[in-house]
């Protein structure tokens, strides 16, 4: 690394979830020698979010993304419980309750918060995004009874799976006609739903718009009665603090293909809406893997004083009831669903004979092979079937 490693420069990162922490540590891995300040509105050490919906037994603890001692070793100035309240681009300052924080380069990694329902939640209900939310859910699981999950997306189904495995009764309510409406093809979603029903989860799909009421002990949702309700109906980017800053804010921080929102200002992770170079269009992902890769990309750009476009094929995984569900890319207008005798599933999604995505159940290496193909461009259905053939000899097409 040369002087571009920036020993006299200050990078301020706002948000210490996976994107923010990864950016800080990656700056050091890429040879950046300047000052790194990492602000977070939460108190306490940075923890990883995917575990919030999976580890909810009474003994569960949260793994940290990074130990605070490691942050110190890497000379990262971590400041928890400091919320950013504004941005002054002209002077290069982040405004916080604790005073202004000047920067040469700013990385916005403020993530998302749960999409709220239109009404306040009753006492025995909560969202799931923070350590405090998780503690509340965990206490409810420890008390037992019936958990009502509002929203049959990844987060909701993971919590439902974990709770039913811990002996709770579980009802999942969603206005959608099926589970996993976003990102998972119908044939796979049907199998996941059947798996939940087999495990004892009650699914109430096509429900009325969810309205929760209740008292100190119980909660009611569309006719379902429970001891606690988890509301998981999507997420919204945390970008209100940037209002009036001059940055373009439209469902996230709008960035170019390099993840730059303005000169010296970058956005990474769930709050970044960037021109995804893989597809040439504005996208915002809410995926753990994208967040880490954004962070790595921007850290390298800052450390080397250079830019390059960020291309990313969406990748999500979900662990439910002993199944590993993985999805690369997006659903299309058609699906080809294959299965082997031992419970392995492969669904190829396509639009106009070009593959848009691949979804697997319990087939991790197959998913890697598909991911490799989709990173190159949009392969044809024949190309994908042929490339995956060595691993799918005993598979039969089932729909």
């Amino acid at each position, binding site marked *: 690394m040369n002087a571009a490693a920036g020993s006299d420069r200050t990078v301020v990162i706002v948000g210490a979830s996976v994107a923010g922490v990864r950016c800080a540590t*990656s700056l050091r891995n890429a040879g950046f020698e300047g000052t790194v300040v990492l602000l977070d509105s939460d108190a306490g050490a940075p923890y990883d979010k995917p575990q919030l919906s999976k580890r909810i037994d009474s003994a569960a603890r949260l*793994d940290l993304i990074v130990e605070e001692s490691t942050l110190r070793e890497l000379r990262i100035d971590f400041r928890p419980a400091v919320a950013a309240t504004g941005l002054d681009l002209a002077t290069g300052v982040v405004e916080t309750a604790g005073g202004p924080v000047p920067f040469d380069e700013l990385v916005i990694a403020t993530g998302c918060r749960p999409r709220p329902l239109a009404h306040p939640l009753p006492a025995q209900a909560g969202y799931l995004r923070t350590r405090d939310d998780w503690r509340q859910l965990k206490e409810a699981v420890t008390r037992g009874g019936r958990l009502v999950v509002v929203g049959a997306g990844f987060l909701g189904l993971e919590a439902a799976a974990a709770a039913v495995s811990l002996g709770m009764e579980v009802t999942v309510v969603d206005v959608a006609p099926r589970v996993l409406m976003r990102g998972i093809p119908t044939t796979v979603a049907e199998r996941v739903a059947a798996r939940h029903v087999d495990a004892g989860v009650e699914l109430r799909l096509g429900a009325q718009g969810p309205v929760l009421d209740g008292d100190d002990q119980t909660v009611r949702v569309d006719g379902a009665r429970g001891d606690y309700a988890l509301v998981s109906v999507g997420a919204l980017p945390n970008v209100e603090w940037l209002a009036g800053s001059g940055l373009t804010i439209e469902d996230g921080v709008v960035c170019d293909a390099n993840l730059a929102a303005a000169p010296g200002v970058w956005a990474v992770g769930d709050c970044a809406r960037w021109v995804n170079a893989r597809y040439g269009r504005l996208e915002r992902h809410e995926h753990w893997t994208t967040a880490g890769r954004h962070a*790595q990309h921007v850290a390298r750009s800052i450390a080397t004083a250079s830019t390059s476009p960020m291309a990313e094929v969406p990748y999500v995984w979900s662990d439910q009831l002993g199944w590993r569900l993985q999805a690369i890319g997006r659903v299309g207008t058609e699906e080809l669903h294959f299965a082997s005798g031992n419970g392995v599933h492969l669904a190829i999604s396509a639009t106009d004979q070009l593959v848009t995505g691949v979804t697997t159940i319990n087939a991790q290496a197959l998913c890697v092979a598909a991911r*490799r193909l989709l990173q190159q461009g949009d392969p044809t259905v024949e190309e994908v079937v042929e490339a995956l053939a060595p*691993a799918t000899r005993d598979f039969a097409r089932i729909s």
Partner: protein
Amino acid sequence: MTDPITVSSPSEVLELDLDKCNGYGNCVFAAPEMFELDLASNVPILLKAEWSDGEREALAAAVADCPAGALRLRKRDALG
């Protein structure tokens, strides 16, 4: 508990904990020269027994990209 699989550079040791690995595959994309996922077992294969300084950043990315925390890069100690 299985002992982690380890490979080393002169100053660091990479540990792969197969008890933690869930086969998410992110390591294969972060450091393709180093990792592959075995088709039959869905378990990672280490493709190299060592790495160069130039490969270190990709390796650190693979460690950080692992959602399961199955990879660890630590300084080599007297016993390493």
